[in-house]
């Protein structure tokens, strides 16, 4: 049961990927795929549901590579962990965050004093606030931090109230509140299609580039060739087709150099 994940550079050594949610499924699919075998990669996928723990485990070496976070989440982690830094191996996709509502069809219908649920996990809180800002509902501080929160709102003309909830409960409480921000992973599982069902969602542009998901590993493995192959593997056409079909195109592929993120 214990697996000492000493990040091994030896060929054919098993790579342990830590992941969660739909990413976990995707990487399980990839691990079993012909494409992986062709590249000579033995992949083992481990579900670790707590993001902080997953990053910790990656930095410490129990997990070789993780696939679950956006770049901004990684930055936030690095800010606090000067010794155990993580680095991105490559970009994977962007999942648009959406604003969902049972009661209203358009942003403009959201009334004064409405209650809006946003994620209580920090990367998604900040991301949600940014989305609300681009929807024109609120205004945030100039230098809004990567893990900013509701304290950083400078203008809230509709006097919206915010409830921070576990984002996985989003689809379950959507009928109970005026609007709920739901990340796509969660929306998908709740049979919501961000592109069709949300009343507003993220677009891929410079303002959302830090929301792009990445593969991450401990800094010392930055140049591990095998790990780098994982990025390539992810963007393999056959695999991308599978993902696109399975998730109705809501996991928008992003294949950019790491420099794009900075």
């Amino acid at each position: 049961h214990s697996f000492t994940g000493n990040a091994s550079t030896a060929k054919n050594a098993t790579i342990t990927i830590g992941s969660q949610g739909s990413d976990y499924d995707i990487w399980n699919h990839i691990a079993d795929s012909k494409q992986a075998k062709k590249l000579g990669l033995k992949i083992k996928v481990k579900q670790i549901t707590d993001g902080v723990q997953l990053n910790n485990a990656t930095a410490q070496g129990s997990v070789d590579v993780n696939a679950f976070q956006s770049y901004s989440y990684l930055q936030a982690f690095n800010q606090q962990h000067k010794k155990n830094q993580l680095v991105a191996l490559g970009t994977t996709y962007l999942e648009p965050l959406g604003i969902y509502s049972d009661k209203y069809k358009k942003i403009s219908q959201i009334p004064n004093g409405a209650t809006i649920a946003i994620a209580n996990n920090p990367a998604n809180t900040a991301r949600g606030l940014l989305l609300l800002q681009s929807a024109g509902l609120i205004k945030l501080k100039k230098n809004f931090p990567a893990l900013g929160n509701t304290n950083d709102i400078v203008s809230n003309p509709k006097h919206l109230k915010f409830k921070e909830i576990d984002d996985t409960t989003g689809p379950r409480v959507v009928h109970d509140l005026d609007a709920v921000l739901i990340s796509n992973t969660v929306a998908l599982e709740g049979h919501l299609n961000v592109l069709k069902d949300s009343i507003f969602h993220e677009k891929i542009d410079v303002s959302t580039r830090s929301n792009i998901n990445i593969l991450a590993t401990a800094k010392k493995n930055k140049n591990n060739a095998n790990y780098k192959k994982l990025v390539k593997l992810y963007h393999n056409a056959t695999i991308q087709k599978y993902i696109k079909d399975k998730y109705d195109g809501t996991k928008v592929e992003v294949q950019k150099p790491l420099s794009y993120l900075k």
Partner: protein
Amino acid sequence: MMLKQIFPNVAHIWPQFVQGIWDTIYMTVWSSVIAGVLGLVVGIILVITQEGGIAEDSYVYGLTDKVVNLLRSIPFIILLAVMFPITNFIVHTTVGTTAALVPLVVGIFPFYARQVQNALLEIDPQVIEAARSMGSGNLEIIFRIYLREGLPDLIRASIVTVISLIGLTTMAGAIGSGGLGDVAISIGYARYQNDVTIAAMLVILLMVFLVQFLGDWLARKTVHL
């Protein structure tokens, strides 16, 4: 100000922190009260209907016993979800501190019922027999013997339960109920603001100590020795 130096981030989110304290107190107090009553009732039912009890009834016992175990089998996070419709029906909302009360109560009262059962089992059957010989009915035995002779044990069981409950409230953050646990986890822990985590835990610790202290004091007082 000291606070700002030792706990810079706490100072930053001070109103939220204070709100967290109140939320925790609110949830703990109310769910203690409600789950306390429920658990006591169910615990007593378990004691009196079980084999050798004053109102032995293997059917009622079996049923109650199984329901208690059933409820205890459900992971809290799932309980939150399972409870949604019921919560909505009772408190007309499914998020926030009040909504959290429903799953908290359902999550803790079966536990308390077991504790009550174990505590009351300790009462000397001979004393109950003496009460029966004096013509006490089941209700009198419950109120005048079980709840009286078993009081110190009940108090100790309650301490354990309230402390467990405080622990449980930290998970209720999942449905936006806030509270110190949520502050500690979703602000302190998830945002790497260790000072917030530590500050929140210190306050929780204080509450736990307070509960234990008050409980111990009460238990000692009720033993009369």
